[in-house]
């Protein structure tokens, strides 16, 4: 391959440089019916799973077909999306916050043709390219992070755990039988690029071994004070270390028993890697929400302290998720979000019905505020 210049001249980087122009203006990208009726929508209805109609005050309608997508998408795949939008939607489309693709048309007929087209597109391995669903009282797409595909701190893979989970809960992606919407999120380490801490169900990659210290290189590639300051539990302190060579170098020491393996030090200092096949795996959390509907937003709670990385399909993880969803579907009331259900029946009953073990790991012991999560009443269920 030969280098082809865009027109940029590295000798004169400022010449004709364009900066600070921001994103494209949204106006250019709106479908016509959207542009015309913006701010004048009257109501909407989910016609069937994945298919919505929004009705404007003047009676205009826009039909939306929502499809799931792996957030990791090839250019070829995006081009196929464009082909579909060109064919059915006047060359317009959008993505949702949860990585779904939305195709919009202004008539029911076009919408039916669109649906038929989408439904028949599959990858050679058999998976749908554009499964229709993700609306209403069902399970939408999983927002997630990079995992092993592109990140330096993950404790598990993101795309793989998500694929395994979505395959398992696929019928609920295409149905609306649950008491309320159920949002699953995935983050491959505690840093939570994808903030999963307020999800109905969260899959979280978790390390369980303190960092390995690459003393020989540490002081060369890291700033020791930054590594020390990065630790939320003050487990790291500066140290002089004698190498096998006999040389003494500046490095750090870690009090392993105070480490909770967050990897924040490794983010600051590459000489403190912590990933490990046996140490790394999955934490499951549940019961969070961000909507203000009925109850205030709430954090997810840790419900499974650890599951190993059973590649490629993480069966223990998907089984636990499945069980939680089934019990939720069975036990919750109409409109009741997952966390409102658990709060109503009590967490002891949740662990019972979901057949999950309650272990010491699930008791909060992080700083003073932990105490507020302990049981401070005689009210409990046997």
């Amino acid at each position, binding site marked *: 391959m030969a280098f082809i210049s865009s027109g940029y001249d590295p000798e004169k980087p400022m010449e004709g440089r364009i900066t600070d122009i921001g994103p494209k203006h949204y106006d250019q990208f709106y479908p016509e019916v959207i542009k015309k009726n913006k701010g004048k929508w009257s109501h909407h209805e989910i*016609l069937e*799973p994945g298919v919505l109609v929004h009705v404007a005050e003047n009676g205009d309608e826009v039909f939306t077909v929502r499809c799931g997508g792996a957030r990791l998408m090839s250019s070829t795949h995006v081009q196929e999306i464009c082909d579909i939008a060109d064919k059915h939607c006047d*060359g317009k489309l959008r993505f949702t916050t949860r990585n779904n693709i939305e195709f919009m048309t202004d008539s029911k007929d076009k919408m039916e043709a669109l649906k038929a087209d989408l439904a028949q597109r599959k990858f050679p391995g*058999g998976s749908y390219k554009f499964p229709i669903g993700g609306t209403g009282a069902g399970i939408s797409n999983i927002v997630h992070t990079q995992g092993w595909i*592109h990140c330096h701190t993950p404790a598990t893979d993101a795309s793989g755990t998500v694929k395994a989970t979505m395959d398992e809960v696929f019928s609920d992606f295409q149905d*609306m039988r649950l008491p309320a919407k159920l949002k699953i999120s995935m983050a491959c380490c505690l840093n939570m690029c994808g903030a999963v801490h307020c999800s109905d169900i969260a899959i979280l990659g978790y390390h369980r071994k303190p960092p390995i210290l690459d003393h020989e290189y540490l002081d060369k590639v890291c700033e020791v004070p930054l590594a020390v300051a990065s630790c939320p539990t003050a487990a790291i302190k500066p140290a002089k270390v004698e190498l096998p060579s006999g040389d003494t170098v500046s490095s750090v020491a870690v009090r392993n028993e105070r480490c909770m393996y967050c990897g924040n030090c490794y983010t600051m200092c590459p000489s403190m890697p912590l990933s490990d096949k046996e140490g790394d795996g999955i934490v499951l959390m549940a019961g969070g929400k961000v909507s203000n509907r009925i109850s205030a937003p709430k954090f997810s709670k840790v419900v499974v302290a650890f599951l190993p990385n059973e590649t490629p399909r993480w069966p223990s993880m998907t089984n636990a998720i499945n069980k939680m969803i089934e019990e939720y579907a069975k036990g919750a009331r109409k409109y009741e979000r997952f966390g409102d259900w658990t709060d109503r029946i009590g967490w002891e009953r949740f662990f019972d019905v979901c057949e999950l073990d309650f272990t010491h790991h699930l008791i909060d012991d992080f700083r003073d505020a932990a105490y507020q999560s302990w049981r401070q009443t005689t009210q409990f269920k046997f």
Partner: protein
Amino acid sequence: MAKHETPLLDELESGPWPSFVSDIKQEAEVRAKNEKGIDFQIPAEACDDLLGLLELSYKDGTTHWKHGGIVGVFGYGGGIIGRYSDKPAEFPGCASFHTVRVAQPGAKYYTTKYLRELMDLWQFRGSGLTNMHGSTGDIVLLGTTTPQLEEIFYTLTHEMDQDLGGSGSNLRTPADCIGQSRCEYACYDTQELCYFLTMMYQDELHRPAFPYKFKFKFDGCPNGCVASMARSDLSFIGTWKDQIQVDQAEVAKYVDGTNPANAGSHKGRDWGAFDIQAEVVDLCPTDCMAYENGELKIYDKECTRCMHCINVMPKALKVGKQRGVSILAGAKAPIVDGAQMGTLVVPFLEIDQTMNKQLADFDSEEEWMEYLEEKYEALTEVIESVWDYWMEEGKNRERLGELMIRQGLQKFLEKINVEPQAVHVDHPRTNPYIFWKEDEVEGGWDRDINEYRKHHAR
């Protein structure tokens, strides 16, 4: 023919959900065949090697990516994330695999023309793999080499009128919900505000000057579809101050079953006939409704605008007309001091409903921006006073929420000139450890022990 055997990954090709493995293989094949005759500027086997590297991770249970090191485009402090493999010899096609964050458009609406241009660029100068979209909201272009970065930036800015997004200790690319463009619940124009602030604060977005990252997110109503309350240092959530608009005739159609409850979201199960008492009135968190003699009554004074009744009966109930935003501050994920939810700091900032001119009503974007600066002046004042405070007092890598906890909510309110109100708290303090300012206490704090001892023997 795949370059590497990937027996573990291959198992992720079956099942109904779109397989990212199949998709990467598809791109690998496109690159291998190169039917379009692209002069790939990074290795053609990038996707092949990525699959091989990932298979290795599936086998040995750890990542094979290293810290990025500092790469970027001239003059910007963010937008590019460096990434290198720790197996460069075995998988040379993805030895360097940097990420480019491209600022996404409002509510992620696209034309195919735009997307095709971008994908063409990315197949040419990158791996052809993307995230649509990253967690913060950007279009994420995955996998290119250092020499391509300025080239990509040049093409984006010169040919596509498109800028990079944010990363590092700066303003991250703001993101919004679909808002008024297609949602009847939206209490303000999330796209307009998001775009306006993004353009207003381009400098903060591209040049790190903050203690740490900073996020804006814009939710049109308390349903919170972009999760701004959980994910953004400043969260702008639409709300209203007057009454919920009620159409009793439409209420009746919900009661008789003509209109489907909750916009049809529960069609997958037979929940029985709609019961307005059980499903709306009894679930109201403030108990501010009654259904009597075929009429729904709402005592709006006690309403806390949770959206439940409106969600259940969108044809009958509409958000109020006096609209604005609630601003919440300090949300973040757990690292370092634990997760935080946004704290309500500005309960209600009204947005002038008469200032509804659009870009098309102006001769230039500049004029429109000036108009918006006036429209949102009270709001940018809040933002800037928050930043002034944080930049003055925040420690290195201290998120806004952590500073708020460290110095207290009253300090924060003082700094942004907001009078403390009962709505700032869920409940008043339970510990009576009340700090007073010396000038609040009669006689001050300076006292003489000898004077005291005149009245109190040792």
